[in-house]
């Protein structure tokens, strides 16, 4: 089992742009309060009710493996609430977090049926990082602002671009959180290569260093095209995420954090 990182704070590893957006939100008290209210109404009432009625809750009694890993991940990342966790029918790879006061995780059955322990540590680590960082609150605030301003293009369009940029950066923070939870760069890379389209079996066989080496855009036109498409992309390109995570890992920041927070 990966080791516990006592006292770890998301601020220590978050992407700077993600961190800046979070700090700005906290400064605007009215938005912060309104978001809490919306979160209570939307997630805790509507969303949780739907999950209870149409999904199956994972408990220590019915899936001890997954529940134990979730508890471990919360311990490793020093997150004090073990969220409720529900299984949903989906081919997706991301575990969807929801709720701030009463957090919930939705896990695709594909992940439950196919991911080994190490990959689950990474994937649950990503989701718990998003809960711990409070990024869901920012997500609700941004969505609400965009809906409120949707009829005024010159306000909503730049906002959408800013929102997409922040979303991409928050994915990078989540990837770093996942790596800290599984404490295995190979596992993190397998997940991201799987996310990029490789089958799980292929992703486990490929060397991530070779994969990064092969990912190059050496055509100017393609580079411009990519930059333009990136503007509105909310999740980030999977191959960029692989590269970003590797650069962060290789910079020594990961080792520093492990040294600083190992109990």
């Amino acid at each position, binding site marked *: 089992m990966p080791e516990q990182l006592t006292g770890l704070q998301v601020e220590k590893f978050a992407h700077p742009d993600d961190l800046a957006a979070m700090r700005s939100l906290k400064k605007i008290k009215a938005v912060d309060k309104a978001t809490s209210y919306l979160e209570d109404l939307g997630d805790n*009432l509507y969303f949780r009710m739907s999950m209870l*009625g*149409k999904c*199956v809750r994972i408990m220590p009694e019915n899936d001890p493996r*997954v529940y134990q890993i979730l508890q471990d991940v919360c311990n490793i990342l020093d997150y004090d609430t073990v969220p409720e966790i529900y*299984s*949903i*029918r989906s081919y997706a790879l991301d575990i969807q977090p929801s709720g701030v006061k009463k957090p919930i995780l939705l896990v695709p*059955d594909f992940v*439950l049926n196919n991911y080994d322990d190490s990959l689950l540590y990474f994937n649950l680590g990503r989701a718990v990082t998003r809960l711990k960082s409070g990024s869901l609150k920012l997500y609700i605030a941004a969505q609400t602002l965009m809906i409120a301003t949707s009829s005024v293009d010159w306000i909503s369009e730049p906002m959408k671009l800013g929102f997409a940029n922040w979303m991409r950066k928050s994915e990078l923070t989540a990837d770093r959180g996942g790596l800290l939870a599984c404490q295995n760069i190979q596992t993190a890379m397998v997940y991201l290569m799987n996310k990029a389209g490789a089958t799980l079996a292929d992703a486990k066989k490929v060397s991530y260093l070779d994969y990064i080496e092969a990912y190059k855009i050496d055509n100017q036109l393609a580079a411009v095209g990519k930059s333009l498409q990136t503007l509105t992309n909310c999740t980030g390109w999977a191959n960029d995420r692989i590269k970003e995570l590797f650069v962060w890992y290789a910079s020594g920041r990961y080792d520093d954090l492990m040294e600083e927070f190992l109990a």
Partner: protein
Amino acid sequence: MSKYNCNNKRLNVAEFQHPVDRKAVNAVLAVPGFEEMLKYVSDHSIERVYSFFNSSSMLKISNEMSPKIHQMLEEAAQMYGTDVIPDLYLQRNYEYFIDLDGMAKPYVVLSSAWLEAVDDQMLWAVLTAQIAGIQAKHGMIEFIGNILDFTKGMLPFGVDAALDVAIKEWKRSRVYTTDRAILLATENFELAAKCILFGDASNAVLEGIGLDKPDNTYYQQAQEFIHRSGAEGMIQKVQTLFSSNQWIASRYIELYNWYFSGEYDDVLEGSLDV
């Protein structure tokens, strides 16, 4: 001799149809000639369109292609004393579904992912439910629903909404009938409950719950859902009112209560008398 363990029983849907489902069907049948008129219109309109769509975009599962499935359908039909066997179409899809439609010529569309995932026991169980659905006239619900969708906005204010809510309630309650049909065909509560939850839980979770055990973790979850009060209860009621799909929690509790109420035993005993 039966190959799929239906013990030569004879089932009659009227004996176990859920009251809301039965009441709705009876209300339509109470108007003389209405069912025949609906069937005629369905046969000469929407069913022709769907027949073309199904045969041109999906794979029809013929007897030659899968004798096993046809054998199961024949035995299920025999159990209900009918010779109506639906056409089966396979649709490439990752979702799990098996949908019955058609009044004059019933047909079933099932997803490739579902067919790949089920074992023979579950396949047999769910196919018996399709025959039960035909016997319970569930194709009629779909057709009336289609007519209402088509006439939306043409009816006086309020009538539209009232009919919409009523048809949705009927659609939600029909699954209670087919869940009971699965239980009666298989005589296996755990399997029948698994058919309800299948697709909404991982294999490990389904194996780990112990769905036939009293007070299992899913039973607790479903009770928690059903007994919501205050704002949560209100939201649940509103969500339910405007949905055609029944909550799996409600289906599980409904089947659980029916199984342990003694009604199940009475119907099963009656089915074995013949």
